[in-house]
């Protein structure tokens, strides 16, 4: 290992050796946040896409009059039975009043108020897999047993959310791309500076028979080591931030955003960032040195 980092050039003492790890740390920090965003949005989009195509919500308006509550329950039951008899429906479950009260509590406050209001009842419907029900026909049949029933197929508003999430995912990929380009640009600048500073040493190595690859290897190994070191630092900075963001997302209520957790697989992907930064720096440094050396005899 010591042999791997042994260098005939004093590259280890350069100013670049001090600032490159810090810059790479910042880049890996940003890349870790963006990559976690990409992976989180992937999961989110998966679930939303599944929900959009696989589930419906039926609204059954509350009946009015003397036996309003009994009539509403009867309409709800008829609607559930109708749905269960439909081959395109895998499952139809009426949302209980208690659950409804729970969902409305943030807006209506106590359950007593809900008792006094003509709150519509809901039925969660899971569509049979591969089926795409004719919603207009289904609405007509439902209205025959439960007047005023309406279908919320989620698709319209979920499609907007999906578009937004896809846009954010593209943005995150763009950030990752920019981070990679910025890292390469920094390595090119650092390597060019080091090459200029050590030109007399490089000439000596050349004149005693060193090939371009031999000289480039020394810069490339150093760039790899510094970038991996910086990458580990950047990841160490990103870990607590990601943990805090994960905690904040979990505290969101309302079920709009499904639970986003950073799993073992995602952590493993993030752990690849320092070596990826190392390889990127290594390749960039090697190419920069070789291109510069072609100007020497």
């Amino acid at each position: 290992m010591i042999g791997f980092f042994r260098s005939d050039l004093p590259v280890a003492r350069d100013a670049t050796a001090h600032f490159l790890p810090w810059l790479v740390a910042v880049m890996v920090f940003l890349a870790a946040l963006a990559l976690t965003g990409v992976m989180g949005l992937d999961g989110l989009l998966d679930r939303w896409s599944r929900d959009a195509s696989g589930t419906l919500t039926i609204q059954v308006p509350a009946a009015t009059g003397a036996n309003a509550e009994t009539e509403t329950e009867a309409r709800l039951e008829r609607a559930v039975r109708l749905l269960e008899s439909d081959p395109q429906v895998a499952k139809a479950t009426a949302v209980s009043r208690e659950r409804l009260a729970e969902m409305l509590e943030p807006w209506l406050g106590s359950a007593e108020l809900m008792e006094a209001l003509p709150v519509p009842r809901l039925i969660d419907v899971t569509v049979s897999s591969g089926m795409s029900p004719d919603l207009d026909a289904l609405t007509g049949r439902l209205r025959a047993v439960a007047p005023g029933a309406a279908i919320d197929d989620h698709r319209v508003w979920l499609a907007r959310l999906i578009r937004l999430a896809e846009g954010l995912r593209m943005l995150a990929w763009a950030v990752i791309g920019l981070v990679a380009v910025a890292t390469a640009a920094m390595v090119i600048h650092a390597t060019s500076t080091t090459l200029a500073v050590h030109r007399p040493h490089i000439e000596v190595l050349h004149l005693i028979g060193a090939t371009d690859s031999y000289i480039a290897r020394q810069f490339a190994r150093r760039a790899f080591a510094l970038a991996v070191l910086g990458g580990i630092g950047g990841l160490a900075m990103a870990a607590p931030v990601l943990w805090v963001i994960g905690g904040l997302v979990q505290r969101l209520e309302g079920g709009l955003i499904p639970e986003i957790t950073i799993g073992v697989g995602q952590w493993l992907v993030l752990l690849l960032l320092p070596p990826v930064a190392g390889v990127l720096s290594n390749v960039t440094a090697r190419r920069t040195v070789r291109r510069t050396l072609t100007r020497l005899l």
Partner: protein
Amino acid sequence: MRQASHGKIAVRFESVGLRYGSGPEVLQDISFTLDQGSFHFLTGPSGAGKTSLLSLLYLARRPSRGSIRLFGEEVSSAPRALLPPLRRRLGVVFQEFRLLDHLSVLDNVALPLRVAGVGEADIHRHVPELLSWVGLGEHMHARPPILSGGQKQRVAIARAVISRPELLVADEPTGNVDDRTALRLLHLFSELNKLGTTVVIATHNEGLVRRFQFPRLHLEAGRLDVLPPMALTAGGGASA
């Protein structure tokens, strides 16, 4: 002094000219041949172009015109990729030493071996041996900045000869050492020459040129003449 000659040509210059930028030619129509295993002094006044000629020999620059063949290979227009293997067959003692100050004496001398891919075990066997021979055994781990001029020169010479080069090019290799050490170093070059190394040494030290009876490449105002060894004078001296 014995002059080895194996019949093969190590270096051939034909009508070589060299100019820097758009300036005048510092070397004009240089033509000469060095047999493999020969020993030549390169003499001439300061500014005659000795260092320029040597830089062409050790492939630091290309001539402005003419042809240079090294070990049978045309190098004046050879692609860059062909030069490193040829350079590994050379040993060079630069006028201003050009040691790497951040490396120890041992690592400086080991450089040509490392560049050639020689293993560390061999390096740690051969380099200390040579350093002891040139009187630097105790300074093996020192850095060049703390060495005297003469010691630096010996490190530079050790670096040039460690890989047993086929052609040794030295620019004033005895310029910073006392007469005794200069003599000792010339004997080292002479021993290498006996083993088959072609040697070209630029020097102003007339005493050494007289003592070691080798032919001279004499440069004057950018033109080169091949002269016989300096004649010995009565009483051990010599005259040109």
